[in-house]
């Protein structure tokens, strides 16, 4: 994709990230909120890879070129763990309350 400027990728990434943010605020279903968080993470991943690709000139050692990609690998792993635990929490809450509307779950109320 040599003809595409970096700005296009980063713009897409920004758009997706903001969509995710808006989704977290708008939706009341915690699972969908989770999906929106995944969306934000993926937007960031896209930005990482795009930057890595556009910085890498083939000169220097490999780890410089791979740094951005490494970040993506770790983000994926952490995201997987986070989804597993988060969905577990949602299941537990659902079993306890028969309800997972985040507006109803107001234990944090002062």
């Amino acid at each position, binding site marked *: 994709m040599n003809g595409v400027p970096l700005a296009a990728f980063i713009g897409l990434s920004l758009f997706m990230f903001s969509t995710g943010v808006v989704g*977290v*605020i*708008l939706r009341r279903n915690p699972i969908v909120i989770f999906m929106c968080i995944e969306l934000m993470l993926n937007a960031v991943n896209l930005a990482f890879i795009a930057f890595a690709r556009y910085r890498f000139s083939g000169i220097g050692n490999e780890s410089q070129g791979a740094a951005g990609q490494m970040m993506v690998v770790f983000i994926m792993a952490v995201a997987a763990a986070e989804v597993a635990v988060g969905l577990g929490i949602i299941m537990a809450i659902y079993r306890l309350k028969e309800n997972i509307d*985040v*507006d109803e*779950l*107001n234990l*944090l*109320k*002062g």
Partner: protein
Amino acid sequence: MEGNSLIWLTLGLPILGFLFQGLCGRFLDKTVAGKKLVGLLAVAPVAIAFLIGVMVTKSLNPSKAVVVSSIPWIELKGLSVPFELRIDTLSMTMVLIITGIGALIHLYATGYMSEEKDFARFFAYLNLFIAAMLILVLGNNLLMLFIGWEGVGLCSYLLIGFWYEDIANAKAANKAFIVNRIGDWGLTLGLLLIATLVATSPAMQGETRLFSYDVIFQHLPKILALNPAMGTVAALLLFVGACGKSAQFPLYLWLPDAMAGPTPVSALIHAATMVTSGVVLMNRMSMLFETSPVASAVVCAVGAFTALFAAIIAIGQTDIKKVLAYSTVSQLGFMFVACGAGAYWVGMFHVTTHAFFKALLFLGSGAVIHAMSHEQDMRNYGKLAKYLPITFGTMMVGYLAISGVPGLSGFYSKEEVIGSALAGDLALTGALEVGKWSGWICLIVAALTAMYMTRMMWLTFFGNTEQWRKLEPHHGEDDGHHHLNADHKPHEVPVSMWVPLVVLAFLSAVGGFYLAQGDRFEHWIMASQIGAKVPPPTHPEGIPLMALSIGAAALGILAGLAVYFKGLPAKEGWDESLWAKFRLRARDQFGYDRLMVNSVTTDSAAFSAAANSGFDHGVIEGIGEGAGNLTKSLGGIFNSVQTGLVRMYASVMLIGVVALVLYVIVSFGGVK
């Protein structure tokens, strides 16, 4: 190992015995042969320890205390406490009493406890007790004494509560332990105070063994000369400890209840050895008491009062072991009178003879109880002499010894106690000669002693009727496991139980005479008395002491015979409405025990409840709730922000992020 290091063996063998019984015994004591092996391995360490003790004593030069050092234990800046043993005449006397009588009682217990399922557990405790008691008397510093002190307290607790399934025994064990806590509090403060005093001595040139006796004895006189009041305080604190362990008046109330334990325990711990550790402590720290007439007067007064009080109570008891328990408390009072009067060696003399005859009497009563299928009430005995000839003969010796019949051991030591109290001029508070008063009280108590012991013997072995023949299905307090009935046949005890009885009877008969010859015992013990080398006179001027003692004994015995010759009088039978009021009150310890126990249980609970409802709910919670309400109302101003809606929090965060980005753009100019 050369001579004096052998003493570690004396200490180590009972510990090894304890470890063996504790770790392997439970797998062996299920069979008869296994029980025999366990019994052998319980008696052997103590017996061998006794033989080693004899060897060490033989090679001991009385005028020179030997300190056997070992590994360090506590090493701090300015304080070091090694494990060290002190071999001198006092400690070796106690070692011989503990291991000798201990071995005999172990032997007796192999017979007495042969039916028990927890055979090995019993001997584990007993061996541990011997080890702890040896540490108490042999340790060369106050902290080792403290280890032993607490160790014997623990074993006493474990053994009183040996039959722990019975709630009464568990309660008695707890009582003993808790009451002893009070005494231990005093002892702890006392020994810490002594160490503190020693540390402040100007002559301490880099010496760090603050708790060791040799250091204390070296520096204490100078310190006390500067500060006599402190000596009195320390002495009284130590005496509080001695009161707890040796069952003196304010704290005696655990000892009668301690009879809930097996009889060998009563004999070994609650008559012969552990309860005398208070007297041993007074002998050890005699230098401290000698310099304080006030403390000595307190010791004398407490001892005399305890002797009298316990003797009166003993007359009202119907349980054979309870009689002996109060008798023990009374005799301990005698020992303290002697110590208070300044004749410390007399206290030790009475400890020794008392160990002989009281162990004998306890073991004898155990034999009677054994023969009467665990019935302990003397009102069910009578005419047992023909069934139990050996027990009867040996107990008779013990009875004559404790009554103070001339020629037997009790006579010598008791006479010395009374004499030293009457002659002593140490126990003074102002013009009041406490020592002299105590001496006269002791004389009265001697008569009372002879009387209640006569009562015990006659109700048990003589009389016209065998009381258990007329047992009815209901009688008195049913302790749940005696099966005495009208056609019961008492049987003499097995050989393992009567051999100790005979040995102790021999000692009770001739021990006092032997030790009193040529003031042998006096010189022996006085050798280790650091401090005043001049013993107080034991024969007061112008008082016919010998005649008085013999008279008191005769009076008591004759009075007892007059009342009890025919056995159980109607006035003391099962029908308690016929009892004299005074006797009923005496049996009840004049309400003292109940008062004490209630004051720390129900009364303090009531006080706590009142404090709780009044002070705690009112004041404390008022403060707490007030503070809480204040913060709550302050927080209420802001807590409407906390809606609990996660999405709202996220929106606010987003607003914040946008504001931050805006700020950065504005302040840094942004992209042109």
